């Protein structure tokens, strides 16, 4: 009797979870569209910038590169490996197919 009761309970829970999951899927789609509309709005677009001070305050003391690139630009980072001089090599490759990439050096003395 206990097992049957537990079975009934579990089925009810799973039904609720299924409803919740569908609700989350719907909300996610809705929110993604909302974000797209907000970012594409011309007024919002005009004010969507940060200052150099904003960025520098987030990464105190570091050398910073700000990269702006067209949608679809590919950034590749190989696994770091030792160079011939025994020093580790770190690399970033950027490849665009639809427009130039802009890189700005910030906060370098």
């Amino acid at each position, binding site marked *: 009797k206990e097992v049957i009761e537990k079975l009934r309970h579990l089925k009810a829970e799973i039904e609720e979870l299924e409803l919740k999951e569908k609700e989350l899927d719907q909300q996610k789609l809705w929110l993604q569209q909302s974000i797209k509309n907000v970012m594409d709005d011309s007024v919002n677009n005009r004010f*969507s910038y*940060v200052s150099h001070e904003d960025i520098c305050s987030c990464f105190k003391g570091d050398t910073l590169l700000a*990269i702006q690139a067209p949608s679809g630009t590919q950034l590749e*980072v190989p696994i770091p490996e030792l160079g011939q001089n025994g020093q580790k090599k770190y690399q970033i490759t*950027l490849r665009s197919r639809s427009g130039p990439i802009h890189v700005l050096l910030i906060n*370098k003395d």
Partner: protein
Amino acid sequence: AQECQNLEMEKQRRMERIKQKRAQLQELLLQQIAFKNLVQRNQQNEQQNQGAPALNSTIKLPFIIVNTSKRTVIDCSISSDKFEYLFNFDNAFEIHDDIEVLKRMGMSFGLESGKCSPEDLRLAKSLVPKALEGYITDMSTGSSWVNQGLLCNSA
């Protein structure tokens, strides 16, 4: 009993999926809040300063930031059409997208770390659809969904 066990596993799988989807939804909410808050801040600043800042002192979204130590030597090769770049660093670096930068600037009111004042919570809620305000309240207290609502009673 076997069916019970199967259903229990099914329940765990669904709960895990819901947890991930809820986290994705919360991340999207943070993006919307951070972006709208930034736009409002810039609008207010331009009104106060009676003009836009110099173009060469700002960076438009979207962007990504690569940060590395001041001592790092960076070697950069660029193709003539600027479609390809190659950077070599002699030290480690990190990469962050613009939303991460906005979070670090405080544009998402500390919601991502569950530390949000009541006033900031009110402001954050005003930047999202009303139907999703509940998620903002959860984030502000860092509370887990599993402890609330539909699963509380059955547990």
